[in-house]
């Protein structure tokens, strides 16, 4: 029988939640790496027991952990992230040049074909690759050095590379996103990169349609249609039907189009999920009501999903990597909140129930569907 394993990264440790395919009864294991900030955990698609985790601390810096047994045991692996060459500068908040400095790993993306290959998106923004299970890391410096890097500047959460999407149909194509630089694509395995931000409009910028500088919060793709991308920008929900060459707004009837998380149904590539957040100044749901919005039309037409979610006095946030889906026949949707709840829906969002309610603030949620 199928099983589901949910990997949860929080402000004070990691948790692994497991259930059978019914997704009614859950076992909660953790905290793992108690007291550390666990930005992200993710499993290899080709070897689901191979997990990678980003463990970080303001005191002790960055550690990467690897498990070969589905999270039962872990081994610290390489944590040396050194920018290639002379790192140079990006823009600081006040527009002055600021040297590139490694701070932490925000996102780990295991290869679709090789469990020993894994990508790391880091702050200050850069992309690293390991081909030996995380033992050593090399920067794919073509991204940072393609030309626009000196114009990148940090978002409020830091200048982080938070999204890495591997194209299942083209091993040379990869998408990444950076706050607050925008989205970028490579078509040659990471050697060369280009900004893909045409159509994004960010009124806070001197040039609202500039090539870079957009605060992209997250990007999602359905593996059956790798040229179609969905984006939750700072404000605006966007879609691209041409691999990021151009974007169109699909916020439609959302009550607010600010937010962080966005994901796609496992079997319906035009069914999307977002969690609208009131504004860039007030990072919590409108009216204290936690509502996931679903579009079955690829955007523009959205419906609120509320059954089982708190509809009063709810002032949590849902961060960019804190939503995920399983691939069971009836697609499950999961998200975590800064209030420490992890909610699950076993019916594509129609109804929700908390798996756990009182974890530390949730940074990330990743789901593995196990045979």
């Amino acid at each position, binding site marked *: 029988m199928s099983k589901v394993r949910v990997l949860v990264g929080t402000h004070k440790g990691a948790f692994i939640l497991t259930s059978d395919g019914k997704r009614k009864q859950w076992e909660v294991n953790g905290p793992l790496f108690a*007291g550390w900030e666990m930005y992200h955990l993710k499993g290899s698609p080709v070897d689901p027991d191979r997990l990678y985790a980003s463990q970080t*601390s303001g*005191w*002790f810096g*960055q550690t990467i952990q690897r498990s070969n047994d589905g999270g039962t045991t872990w081994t610290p692996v390489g*944590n040396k992230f050194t920018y290639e060459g002379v790192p140079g500068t990006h823009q600081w908040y006040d527009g002055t040049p600021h040297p590139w400095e490694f701070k932490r790993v925000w996102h780990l993306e295991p290869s679709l074909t090789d469990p020993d290959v894994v990508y790391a998106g880091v702050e200050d923004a850069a992309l690293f690759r390991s081909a030996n299970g995380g033992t050593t890391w090399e920067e794919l410096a073509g991204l940072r050095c393609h030309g626009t890097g000196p114009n990148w500047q940090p978002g409020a959460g830091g200048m982080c590379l938070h999204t890495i999407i591997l194209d299942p149909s083209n091993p040379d194509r990869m998408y990444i996103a950076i706050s607050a630089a925008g989205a970028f694509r490579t078509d040659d395995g990471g050697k060369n990169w280009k900004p893909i931000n045409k159509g994004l409009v960010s009124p806070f910028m001197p040039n609202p349609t500039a090539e870079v500088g957009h605060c992209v919060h997250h990007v999602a793709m359905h593996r059956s249609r790798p040229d179609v991308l969905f984006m939750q920008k700072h404000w605006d929900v966007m879609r691209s039907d041409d691999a990021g060459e151009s974007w169109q707004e699909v916020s439609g009837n959302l009550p607010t189009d600010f937010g962080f998380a966005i994901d796609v149904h496992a079997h319906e590539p035009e069914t999307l999920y977002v969690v609208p957040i009131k504004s860039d100044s007030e990072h919590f749901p409108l009216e204290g009501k936690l509502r996931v919005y679903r579009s079955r039309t690829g955007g523009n037409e959205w419906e609120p999903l509320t059954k089982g979610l708190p509809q009063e006095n709810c002032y949590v946030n849902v961060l960019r990597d804190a939503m995920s889906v399983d691939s069971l026949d009836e697609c499950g949707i999961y998200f975590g909140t800064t209030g420490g709840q992890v909610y699950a829906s076993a019916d594509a969002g129609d109804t929700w129930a908390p798996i756990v309610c009182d974890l530390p603030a949730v940074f990330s949620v990743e789901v593995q569907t196990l045979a």
Partner: protein
Amino acid sequence: MTGQDGVLHSIHVILPYHLRALAQVGAEVTLEVAGPVTVRRVLDTLEARYPMLRGTIRDHVTQQRRPFLRFFACEQDLSHDSPDAPLPETVAAGVEPLLIIGAIAGG
């Protein structure tokens, strides 16, 4: 015992809680350090024995102490001393430990 060149010294190092967990050791580790006994040599030896601690106490490349950590011994704060300065004789003699302390901060 003084921190003489080439002589091995048994040095006691007390690690902060999270680094003990990371290295899977108790509060105190004992290292055989070749003299002269300095912070740099102690950390070199510590990292060689526990590679998972590389980068957690000092930067991989610059070797600078991480800002929220301090080095104490014999009721003195040695954090701003040169990493190549000899540690107190009682540390080199294994009588007093070198303490690696995490800042009391955060939430």
